[in-house]
Each structure stands twice: as structure tokens, then as C-alpha cells.
């Protein structure tokens, strides 16, 4: 959908798993959810998180694919592996810094979130972001996000030396510009 972007805010997630149930209803992979959902550590906390594919500008999954089976469209959507090409090697599953792709053992094919291509290509919102009761997954205009939320969106992530820019946005505190998960990103040594 033109003018709409996907925003993820795990701090809003209530763990209801509506996104997973709705993802199963998608026309292209009916019966199988492509959502990545975690109870962070249920014995310790109620915190949960639901993710979709971040749809990287330069997707690691495609870079490491020996069969050239993973394609990114002009719209920025990184698709599931092409069935005739995918050799089921799981390189993408291991390499994705976000841990998104899933190997469908039965089909011997990597499948992942394609941001509801069948819906977004005809002017509908992705299923998960439409139903999400807490709007932890949200598909709205940048204006709406800027107007509504305390946090701000970023789509720049550092994983050690790897900088990843994505189509999907993560909501972060107002004074943060990028998400860094590796301690190296916070060290002085090795900086250019």
C-alpha cells in the first residue's frame, strides 16, 4: 500500500498471538504462520515479542543463498525462496541477523513473511498488523506514527560490524537513532 509502512513495537505486545493465528489465514500459505513470536523468559517476566521479516535493503538471506533463490522486489519486499530454485540448505536461516526465515521441512523450501504480498499488492493491510489488538505490529502512515507515539521509528540496526537498513521500522526511545545489539558497537576500539 502506497504511503504505508510497517512498525514493530515489542513493548506494546501482550502475547495474545493473534498475529500468528491471523498469519495462518493468509491465502498464500494458509495453515502456516510466518510470525516470529517469543515469550522472552516466561518464568521471569510477562514480556513477549512478535516480529515479522524486516525486509532488509540488502538482504543477508539473499546474499548467502547459493541458489540465488531469494529475491527482493522493486517494492522492497523480500520474498520467500523461489520454490524451483531453493535447495533447502538453510544458509538463510542461519545467516539472517534477525532470525526470521524458516525452513519448511516438508516442502524443502525456505518460507518467510512477505508482508502479505497478496493483500498489500491490492491495497489491503497485512493481516497481522490489521488484527493486532495492541498495535505492537502496525501498518500505518509515517505521519500517523509521528503523531501518535511517544517512541520514534528507526530502520538502522548494527550487528557488530554489520550495518543493516530495513524496510520495516522498529520503535525506539526518542533519543536513539539506531538499534545496536553488540557490545562492540558501544566500544572505542576499532572505530574508524
Amino acid at each position, binding site marked *: 500500500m502506497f504511503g504505508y509502512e510497517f512498525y514493530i513495537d515489542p513493548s506494546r505486545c501482550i502475547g495474545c*498471538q493473534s498475529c500468528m*493465528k491471523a498469519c495462518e489465514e493468509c491465502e498464500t500459505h494458509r495453515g502456516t504462520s510466518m510470525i516470529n513470536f517469543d515469550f522472552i523468559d516466561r518464568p521471569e517476566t510477562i514480556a*513477549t515479542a512478535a516480529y515479522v521479516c524486516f525486509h532488509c535493503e540488502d538482504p543477508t538471506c539473499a546474499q548467502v543463498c547459493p541458489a540465488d533463490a531469494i529475491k527482493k522486489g522493486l517494492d522492497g519486499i523480500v520474498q520467500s525462496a523461489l520454490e524451483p530454485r531453493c535447495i533447502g540448505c538453510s544458509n538463510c536461516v542461519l545467516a539472517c541477523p534477525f532470525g526470521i526465515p524458516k525452513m519448511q521441512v516438508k516442502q524443502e523450501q525456505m518460507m518467510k513473511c512477505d508482508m502479505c504480498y497478496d493483500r498489500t499488492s491490492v491495497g489491503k493491510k497485512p493481516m497481522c498488523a490489521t488484527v493486532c*489488538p*495492541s498495535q505492537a505490529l502496525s501498518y500505518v502512515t509515517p505521519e500517523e506514527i509521528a503523531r501518535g507515539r511517544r517512541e520514534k521509528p528507526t530502520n538502522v540496526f548494527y550487528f557488530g560490524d554489520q550495518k543493516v537498513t530495513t524496510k520495516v521500522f522498529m520503535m525506539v526511545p526518542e533519543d536513539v537513532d539506531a538499534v545496536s545489539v553488540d557490545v562492540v558497537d558501544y566500544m572505542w576500539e576499532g572505530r574508524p
Partner: protein
Amino acid sequence: MAQPPVPVDRLADQYGPHPSHTPVGGWSHEATHAPDRLVKTHCCFCGQQCGIQLKVRNNQVIGFEPWEDFPFNNGMLCPKGVKRYLQSGHPDRLLDPLMRTDAGFRPASWDEAIGFTARRLREIQDKHGKDAVAVYGGASLTTEKSYLLGKFARVALGTRHIDYNGRLCMVSAGTAYKPAFGVDRSPIPWSDIPKADVVLVVGANVAECAPITTSYIWRCRDRGGKLIVVDPRMTPITRNADLYLPVRPGTDLVLLMGMLHIILRDGLEDRKFIAEHTLGFDEVSASAKPYDPHSVAERTGVPAEAIERAAHMFAKADRAIAMHARGLEHHSKGVENCSALINLCLATGNLGREGCGPTMITGQGNGQGGREHGQKCDQLPGQRSISDPAAREDVARVWGITADEIPQAGLTAVEIMEAVHRGEIRGLLSICFNPLVSLPDAGFTREALEKLEFFGVIDFFLSETAHHADVVLAGSLQEEEEGVVTSAEGRVIHIQQAVDPPGRARRDGDIICDIARKLGKGKFFPYTNPREIFEELREASRGGVADYFGITYERIDREMGVFWPCPSLDHPGTPRLFDGGISMHPDGKCRFLPTPWRESGDPVDADFPVYLTTGRVVSHYLSGTQTRRIGGLVDQYPEPRVEMHPRLAGTIGVATDDWVTITTRRRAITLQASVVKTIRPDTVFIPYHWPGGRSANQLTHRTLDPRSKIPEYKVSACRLAKADST
């Protein structure tokens, strides 16, 4: 003689619950991809009543599509809403009326089943009097069916005993709001929630039991609002709470009085509002004196500083909302608990303006509408008292009988089961109610059911309670019969008939009317469709508190729902009640109500040292008759677990997945443990959606609030022991 005809395992093999994972024809079936039409209607689960579009093909519901234009939920749905369509074409569905035999149940003709039902009810009444039979209804029925059932009990059967499963749900709130404000409804529409500066949530697991309300609370926080959560468990919304008060089960009243004490001590009350709009302040003010923060901390287990902070946050906010649900209401002092919360709002002037006020989160599908028009034992249509001579005259005129012919108030839901147990009520007709799972003290309920001389059930699946039936009349799912329901915020909305009942199953309304005809009362039940019932209900509610006269199906569709009261066709409806602080009492004043303390009916002691509290999980609804048959929802929470803190688990040497026997003064059950740091160490929690040996209600007790007659589900005393396995 109403024991199950054969062992319940055999009934379960035949009638389920069997979880269905795929739509009719399977996931990949071409037919499930191309609907003939989309039907704009509402979810059948819970009082939020989210808008949803059902995909229909060949008289089957084959999927759903979000309905983004419906203003309450804008397309949002919880997992129950997403998967609700899987009830269509379900293998467990009852397709014929069933008659009990020695070998189980056999399909019967409608003539035989209705004839038998009417004959048995009449025989019992002829022999033992009109009140020897009772009717059970449910708050998931449409308002038309609720109205019809109330009229059926009073006009066709002439019994005073009709009550419904809403008695297990909302009644403490209603019983508190009515004397305070003259009406039983949430004072605010949900669109007010994001406008509050402080939202106080007391005893409401919003994220799991009213998931869409989460988005309203998060939007409130987005614009800087603060969230205070009061609960013995850190429920999922607590992750973003600005203040969390881990109240000891059964002590909410003490905590709320403690907050009032601090507000009055520090002069934070709204003197002007109190003087202009309220009565009874002085008495309540005096009663708050003994609740000093130190003693309140002792009794509630909440630190005094946290109580001070909560009181100050609430009182200093320009607009504060206080939300509550069953956690506040399921107590032997449920009414006083709700009154204490209302008192807090009145003392701080939080009423009758945008973004403030007390509000109840109704739990059941038609929890609001189902309690307004006559299936409550003491109420006539329009939320009018059955003991009010003027209301009786009005309704008798609409019904075409004399006021004398309307019975007086009867017993409430739990009391009806107790009267069955005593042998006073010998015949029971039940619809939309699974008391064997949902009433407290399930062993007692089973004994009572076994004593019934006649038990008739109208249902779409064979519930555990229906195992005891003499006749089961195959009724309709929500999407198989048109009608209206009223959502938690007081919005009257339109349920569409998307498909016809399958097989020989029939619409509930037609079944009830046919029994009435067989009883010789057909002239009072001339309806051929729900619309005719609604037209009569509009008239019967006219002039009542819950006035629906100005509401029509067409207006609801055009205006995306209409908030009652709506007394005339040109009236816009009333989203927010009490504008300017004016209540619906004749004098316009709101009442502070006294809130004396009472102990729990099942107190913790040395033998039973741990608090047991029960509730719901996000993927199941009420007694589970529907959701335990939907595969995706069963997968998410397949079996009940006993939730406990590691400190408590350590005392009995239990880790997650170990089996634990929970024993109360009634009975014991054995479940697997979930050891989590998100519950008080003196409390365990068990969800109640399951029957038999997994049923939390084997453990609960029948103590009722003396006025609302709600059971005290939220406090039982128990002890725990590690079990080998089951």
C-alpha cells in the same frame, strides 16, 4: 434420574470436544479461498463485540476478513476472533434434536423433542406447582433471545425462576452502579479511554479477557497518560504500568478505602463536585478514617508508599478512569468493592466529563444487553424492577396479560442449582449455559443435575452439562440468527445471520416459540423472525432506564451502532452518561454508598494456607464449549495449569511441568505447574475453562455476595502438594 446415560468418556468420543484445525474442506481446498459474500457482523466471544466480516460460501462460514471501518476495533481482533469461524461445519455440531436413551442419545424428530419437552415441563408444574421448573439463560444470547426467554419463563411457564450465566459475571458491578447512578451501564464510551490522564485498572486482565481494550490504554499512554494496575498477578498489560500494586486476593476493598483515606487526609477531594452532585459523602468519608496507609499495607500486602503514590496520581489527575472487571466483582463483597471504586471517582470529581469516570469491562458477548431485558430473575425489559408496579403494568400491557400474571422475582443462578439440589426445583430448561463447568463447587452441581426429574438443553454442541439432559434441542450459533447485542461500552450493534443452521438444527428463537406453542401459549409468541421480537422489545423497553425505543436495525447499520438510552427515532443515542455529573436518579444526584468489610467465605488458615484465584486465558472463552473445539485456540492453551511463584513452588519442591495436587475444603484436582515470578507467592491461579478432573470449579465455593449473588471465584483457600503424575 439425570446421570449421563453412558460414561462421559463415551459421550466425549462421539460428541467432542474434538479440536478442529481447518476450515470446511481443508486449508488448500479451492472453495475456502473464494467466498460468495462477506457478511459484516461481530465476534461471538466477549463483551468487546469486535466488528468482523465473515466469509461465506455455500451456506458455510469459510474464513474471515477484518472489518476496518467498524469504529470500536478498526479491524483488530484477538485470536478468538480470528479463529471463531472454525465453528462452522464443525464435526461435533449437533444436527438433530437428541433424546436420551439407555445407550446414549438418539436423534429424534422436532415434533417428538418439543412435544416431550413441553409435556414434561407441564407434568412437573401440574404436580408440584409453577415454580417447580426453572429456566437458565445466557449472556451470549442476542437481546431478542434474552427478551424472548424472559417472556417465555413468565408467560408460557409462569415460573418466577429464570436467571442466567451473567449472574457469574457482571452482577456485582450492576448492583453497585444502579444505586449510585440509577443505571447499570458503563458511564463512558471506550473512545474516552485514550483521553484520560490516569487509568486505574483494578482486577481486570485486560490483555487476555478484553484484548482490544489494550490498544485504548496504550493510546492513552502514547499521549502521556499513566497506568496503574492492581492485581495479584502481573497480567500482560502490567509490562507498561507506571505503578503496579500486587494486592492480596480479597483485599481490594481495603486498598481502595486506603486510597480514599489518603485523598481525604491530604485534601485532594473535589469539594465542589461532591457538594453539587452527590449524596452520602459524610458517612463514607467517616468510614475511610480507619484505613490508614500502614494498616492497609499490612492487610493488602501492598507497600504504603505505593498506595500513597496511587492515591495522589489518581486524585491529582484532571481526568482519571477507573476500570474493573471480574477481579473486583467475584467476591462475597463484590458490590462493596465496586462501590468503593465508584466512591473514589465521585470523591475526585471524575464523572460526567470526557475521559474520566468508573467503568466496568463487561465480559460476555452480550453481557450488557443480555442483562437488560428480562432474563434476570428480578428484572423486566428496559432494566426495570419486577417489583415495580408501574413497570409490571407497562410490560403486562405489551405482553397482553395482566400485571398480576407476571410472577414476582425468583432465585438467582446459583440459588436455582441449590433449589434443584434440595428437590424444590424439579425441572430445568437451559440455553447458553454450561453450569457444570462454570458454577462454583462443581461436585455439588453434578449432584444437583443428577436429581432433576426433567432437564432440557438447547445448544449447538453437546456441553458437559448437556450430558445430563433428557432432551437436547439442536440450536443455533451466533452467526445463524439475526439480532442485536450491546457491547461493553453500551453500543447496541447488529448481529447478522450469515448462514442457516446446518442439518435439522434450528434457530434458538424458533425453538423457544415452538415450546411456548406446545404449552398452549402460542398467541403470546406469534413471532416468525427476530425483527418482530425486536420491535416488541423496543416498545417494552420504552420509558425504561435502558430505553431502546429509538433504535432500529437500519439505524444500527447506518450509524455503526447506537448507544442506549435512545428514547426516540430522532434521538442520537447516549455514548457518555451523566453529562455534567447528573445521574439518572430522579434528583440527578450520584450516591456515595457505604462499603462495610466482610471476610471471605472461604478464609485462608493453617490447613489451607494459600489463596486460589481463577480466571480466563486469552485463547478460551467461558466454559470452553466453543473454544475447546477450535484447534488453533486449543494449541495455544491446551490444558489448565496451576500458576505459582518460585518461592511457593520451592516449599513443595515443584518446578514447571511437575504435577501438583490442589486441595480445597471441597475437593482436590491435580494439574501441571507453571512456575513464574509474575504472581504473588501466597497465591495460585487456575483458569476455569475445563471440565471434570481439570476443572478449577471443583475447588471453588458457593459463597455469594448477599446482594448481587455473584460467587466468590476470586478467593478460595487451598493447600498444595507435589503429585507423582496423573
